[in-house]
């Protein structure tokens, strides 16, 4: 295993190194003026400098707040509706067609409506994040809960557990792998959407920093927030995977 793993890691780092080398080559050969493509060193040193700047960190904190507020709302609504749609025919019959209509709608198109109703501040961005993240979570929860082996539920009902209690103490835990997969997709979507919302209309946050820099053609400062949000996305994804592994200790490995 180990002997094979090392060359594969090398192989995998090859395209990443190539991209960086191409970037460096283009700038140092003078083929790309720094106003269009700043050299990598300039971007990364600026990034390092910004990460200690309280103003920049304040913008990042604003973005994170909106991200988690929207994501939390999406998890609460998505998981609850997903479980209830499995547990109750009535809820399923109501939720099903509405999801069918709303899921393929590009939620970003609702952003102007959210701005009109909720204003230009946090609320409209949080609403957009929640609207975008809720559907993968809801669908994954519904799929997971409706695919739970009925005999698992029967085993619980036989001991005297009520159907309602079994829905949350047996069906939901049994569907946890699927629910958490949906949440992880929702988390990455939240990360992307909050940034885009801030780019389209905001006075603060990382997305706003990118647009602000582009208006004054400070190219280096356009790269920095973009890289920050991408690293944030990677970190959240990795963190969530670690959490998932802990929570799913008893479940068989997924292929």
């Amino acid at each position, binding site marked *: 295993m180990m002997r094979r793993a090392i060359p594969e890691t090398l192989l995998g780092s090859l395209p990443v190194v190539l991209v960086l080398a191409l970037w460096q080559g283009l700038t140092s050969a003078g083929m790309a003026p720094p106003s269009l493509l700043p050299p990598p060193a300039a971007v990364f040193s600026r990034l390092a400098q910004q990460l200690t700047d309280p103003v920049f960190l304040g913008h990042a904190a604003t973005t994170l707040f909106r991200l988690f507020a929207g994501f939390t709302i999406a998890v609460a609504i998505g998981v609850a509706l997903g479980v209830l749609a499995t547990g109750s025919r009535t809820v399923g019959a109501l939720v099903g067609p509405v999801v069918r209509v709303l899921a393929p709608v590009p939620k970003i198109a609702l952003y102007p409506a959210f701005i009109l109703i909720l204003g230009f501040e946090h609320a409209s961005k949080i609403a957009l994040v929640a609207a975008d993240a809720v559907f993968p979570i809801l669908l994954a929860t519904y799929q997971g809960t409706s695919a739970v082996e009925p005999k698992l539920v029967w085993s619980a*009902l*036989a*001991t005297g557990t009520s159907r309602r209690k079994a829905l949350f103490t047996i069906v939901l835990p049994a569907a*946890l792998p699927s629910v958490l997969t949906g949440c992880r997709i929702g988390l990455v979507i939240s990360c992307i959407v909050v940034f885009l919302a801030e780019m389209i209309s905001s006075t603060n946050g990382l997305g706003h920093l990118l647009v602000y820099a582009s208006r004054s053609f400070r190219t280096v400062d356009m790269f920095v927030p973009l890289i920050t949000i991408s690293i944030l996305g990677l970190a959240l994804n990795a963190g969530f995977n670690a959490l998932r592994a802990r929570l799913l*200790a*008893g*479940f068989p490995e997924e292929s």
Partner: protein
Amino acid sequence: MIAIEGLSKSFETARRSSHTALADISLNVAAGEFVSILGPSGCGKSTLLYIVGGFVPPTEGTVAVNGKPVTGPGPDRGPVFQEFALFPWKTVLGNVMYGLLERGMARSKAEERARALIGLVHLKGYEHFYPKELSGGMKQRVAIARTLAYGPSILLMDEPFGALDAHTRTGLQNELLDIWERDRKTVLFVTHSVEEAVFLSDRVVVLTRSPGRIKQTVAIGLSRPRRRAQLLVDRRYQTLVVDIERLMDAPEEAP
């Protein structure tokens, strides 16, 4: 103990025509009796068990346990499924304790009883393993312990050894008889193996292929406690097995 009266079950199929799985089953099982339901695959024998368990409603007819009609699952009837249906997020101990806690037993007392049962099924030392870390035979031992734990007066066993290899299977048959000899619970045991049915039961109910009707009921007059090695060379055992196999192969008379 169990009184099944004129039971039929039909399912709606995809093309909206109805498929009859069970037709006109009437059967009485006495307290402490070990009865096997034997039939070819697709004869609805598992469905019969699910109806007695209260997991699936009958289309026609009634089931009564101790004179009370069955309307849903209850802790007087403990199921053991071919699929084990263990809770993957709970350890062996957690699975066995589940029913006890649901019945309102205090945690420390439940743990004590669960540990005793885990010892009874020869799994001492595996208390903190997750189901995924156990072999098929061990999983089914846990499932049996989980059901025995809350003390149902009737065991409903749905091809419990069907997913196991031949060696594990005979081992568990012996263990089941050992456990059964201790308190002689009423057992309804579904299987498609003639040897298994004859070895375990007081009575074998042979069903016809779809729709499942009672073809014949055969009393197994072999003395107890039974020992596999003695039975295999016992003329009466051999005759019973051959007779029932012939009965199963015999063409079905038109209803």
